[in-house]
């Protein structure tokens, strides 16, 4: 059934299967989703590894992502150039991490990077403020924003340096069993 496809070589499909949490069928299905975003840019033949990048605007318009308040950060974290323009590899990687089979630590790592807006490997107060504004449509007052961010740092910061490191974040995730089902996008 799937042996007649001519999009990828067998080695490429094996590599995709080994490096993501998807089966062959799902990889092909995701390829077609990727191609549907821009059929004129994405060739049907990936055997010679064309260098095709879809701009962020197309990725962000996907129905799974278009209402997500963090879609831009997600695209930036998983794209190679950090701007949100994704190759097919980045696309597969993104949905693989966000699928239900990815383990908790991997998801926690990428969730941390998504919330780390200034890419300094720490979630500091400004990152928390940006997260809060994205989640509450900028409707909280300045005071409330400040108080909530202070509370978050108080509760989650273990080593008292005023910002959340990856370990602090992972410690919190270990104690939140719903994280596996909430940090999950179905495609």
């Amino acid at each position: 059934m799937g042996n007649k496809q001519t999009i990828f070589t067998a080695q490429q499909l094996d590599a995709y299967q080994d490096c993501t949490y998807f089966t062959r069928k799902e990889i092909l299905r995701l390829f077609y989703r990727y191609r549907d975003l821009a059929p004129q840019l994405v060739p049907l033949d990936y055997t010679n590894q064309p260098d095709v990048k879809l701009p962020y605007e197309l990725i962000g318009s996907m129905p799974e992502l278009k209402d997500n308040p963090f879609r831009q950060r997600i695209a930036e974290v998983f794209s190679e150039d950090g701007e949100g323009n994704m190759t097919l590899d980045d696309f597969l990687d993104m949905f693989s991490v966000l699928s239900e089979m990815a383990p908790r630590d991997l998801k926690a790592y990428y969730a941390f990077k998504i919330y780390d807006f200034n890419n300094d490997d720490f979630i500091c107060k400004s990152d928390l403020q940006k997260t809060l504004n994205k989640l509450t449509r900028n409707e909280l007052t300045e005071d409330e924003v400040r108080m909530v961010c202070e509370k978050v740092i108080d509760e989650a910061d273990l080593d008292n340096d005023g910002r959340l490191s990856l370990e602090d974040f992972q410690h919190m995730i270990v104690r939140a069993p719903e994280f596996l089902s909430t940090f999950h996008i179905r495609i």
Partner: protein
Amino acid sequence: MDYGLRLLHVKIKGGIYLIIPSVTEEQNLVKELIDLSTRDRIRAIRELPMSFEEKKRIRWVMSSIKQCCRIILHQHILGCVCLCHSSARQTLELWQGVMKEIGGKFGSSVLSYFMFLKWLLMFNIFSFLVNFGFITIPLLVYDPLPNIPPNVSFRGLEILTGAGYFNYTVMYYGGYSNETLSGLVDYDMQLAYFFTIAVYMVLCGFALIFSMARSFQRNYILAEPASSCAWQLLCSWDFSITNEKAVRQRKSNLRESLSEKAQMKLLTLSEKLKHFAVHLGSWLLSTGLALGCGASIYYLCQYEQQVHSSMEGLTLLVPFVVSLINLVIPLFYSLFYKFEQYSSQRRQIYALVIRNVFLKMSILGVLCFYWMNVVAKKYSCWESMVGQSLYRLVIADFLFLMLGSFFGEFLSNVIGTRLIPRFGVPEFDIARNVLELIYAQTLAWIGIYFSPLLPAIQIVKFFILFYLKKVSLTQNCQPPRRTGRAAQMQTTFIALLFFPFFVGALSMVAYTAWRLAPSEQCGPFRGLNDTFSVVGVWIDDLEVIPGSQWVVWIYQNVIRSEIFYFLITVVTLVITYIFWQVIQGRKSLMNLLRQQIVNVSVFEEKRLLLMLFIERILFCTQHWVYSKYILL
């Protein structure tokens, strides 16, 4: 395997970060991966927090190292087989696509209802296969035609009442014989009936305990309190919601809840007293209502018995009233939130759940009491009578569940959108629906002893219910506005399923088997004093067979002796105490470690400051020496 900390973060031009393993890191990685089997290696590569290019490169490195090994081919085939198996399993899994759709639109807490339904369906399928295979099929093979009296024929009413034609078939306890069926092998029906039911209940108990313990460990012990800001901000957002309106509503709710936390209100004494009085009043009201319903059911049963007419339709009165109570009163309880204020939404849900559980337990308790004390003493083939009552209850419950969907969801939707727009579109009430499922399953568990084929009805019921609820959900309901702690609620529901519902059903069946005399004229246990004596008779038969003395010994000295149970209890208590002490020790260790993290970071700061200070002193000293000796 946590590789995140060992990667090099390289900042290149333009503020872009690349995370690459440095050369030695990559060598370490390869060294670790090379020792694993193929399956473990693939899993480890997938879990690497690296970009796709790096993962492919690591994989290429691994495969080129291993290329000379021929074992890889064998393991690759195994890997392929494993993948084929997993993709085949995905296609065979029941309702996979529907679950994805529901989860995407309504979130994981609504999805948990449907997964619970699927899980209960598996129990019933297993029960049906076991009962049908071990009890019914041998009887059908031996005696395919049921011995029905000549004046009884099949009318349509049997589907509702379960009496009449069905009474003489293998549907109920009375249709089974107590003989040893001779055929290819000697098949003892008594033993088969007893052991099939007993083993099934024990396996159910183990499955429930196991999943309850696992769920409890994962979701309760380590869990962060839901009231913490950090959890709400960073862990609670559901990425899988694709509905714009749902996203907007969740954002508003998060905003409300966070702004409430930011300005914490304290209540005055009079407000506290008022809240306490309102709580007390509503609890008294709900408890009184539950007890009143139980008493009225009892009197209704007695009335039905007194007016024992030939009208078969009257037997439907009690089941219909029971199901009506189960439909109306929980809806009434749901309205309590209008005047009862709870400090958190979770407490509100728990209060609702407790009230509903109490109502259902009182109804089931009254019915079981009536069956065991009145029906068992009055009728000749009383197990079949109880089986018929249970059948009617199951059917009535199914009909009223369908009605409940209509009232609870469809009518609410119509009222909320057209008549009184203030109410809005209803949400799917997860707690109420899950409790209805638990109640339906309890009826099936009680009924297995009296009507072995009842699980078949339950399977059909759950199947239809799944599609019905799905359609009702997608047409009438909106996604839940608040992000609930779905995992903890799941644990609570499984715990409720086990205790009091499963334990209650098991107790009832055990009491029936132990204390009540089986009926004389029908069923597989006729002629015995109680059902358990089947085992005694079997052991007596076994004593004459050589080679099976060990079974007899186990029965005499282990199962029948009290010392054994006493010893087991003492040993279990001691082990429990030891584990409890271990947990206490681990808790204090966790606190110690947490304090140490703080100390280490403080220590690090102090060390840095000290180093700077020493550096400064050295610099000043050098400068002084230089100025003293050179300038001289």
